[in-house]
């Protein structure tokens, strides 16, 4: 699962930074049928979390109500230089993760 995560490379201490997460995923609703009429199993990213130097700053439960290639944007306070770790899992148990580092002056 490819993901595109955008955070500023550097920030001032205490600054509120924008975090944008875009994950490539079909987000199958479980209500669609394939060409031969079989129901396509639901497969959505149901959990997404963001940890900032090991501390969870954001978490989301998603469902089939979220568009394909889920996009989530949120904010966090730039606290210390370090890493933001993103982790997500879908209904099939496929996990994905991504790391981004941030410099805090």
């Amino acid at each position: 699962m490819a993901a595109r995560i955008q955070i500023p490379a550097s920030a001032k201490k205490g600054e509120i930074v924008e975090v944008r997460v875009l994950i490539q995923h079909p987000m199958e609703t479980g209500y669609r049928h394939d060409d031969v009429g079989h129901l396509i199993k639901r497969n959505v990213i149901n959990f997404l979390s963001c940890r900032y130097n090991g501390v969870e700053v954001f978490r989301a439960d998603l469902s089939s109500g979220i568009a394909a290639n889920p996009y989530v944007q949120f904010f966090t306070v730039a606290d210390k230089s370090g890493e933001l770790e993103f982790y997500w899992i879908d209904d099939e148990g496929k996990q994905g993760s991504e790391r981004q580092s941030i410099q805090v002056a």
Partner: protein
Amino acid sequence: MRRRDFLAGLAGSLAFPAIAQETLDPLAAKIAKGAPVRKGRVTVTLPQLADNGNSVPIRVTVESPMTEADHVKSIHLYSERNPVSNMANFYLGPRAGKAEINSRVRLAGSQHVTAVAALSDGTFWYDAAAIVVTLSACLDES
């Protein structure tokens, strides 16, 4: 009835067809487990019209200082007409700095979208926004 009264009544009833609903979605009320969910502090921003319900941008903001003592714990999104009413739950904390979430949702038809925010002081707030969806997100085959 006089013709004038009749026409005045007709004009009044046509002006705003049932779109100005201001009550909380009963499914959305469940999250508060009986606690009152008041209108205010939360703002849901949706386009007025979406050509395609498969991807509709949504923004939810909550008025909150986002400090350790007073912050938004979670934001819950509900749809009136989707088969899965609870579209997403977002969990924030004082580390968020700003209580704002942007995402894209699927909507099965014209409806109201409700956002409920749970605050650290135990209160619940909501806001709803109406949207007209020309083409619903895929439920039926086409």
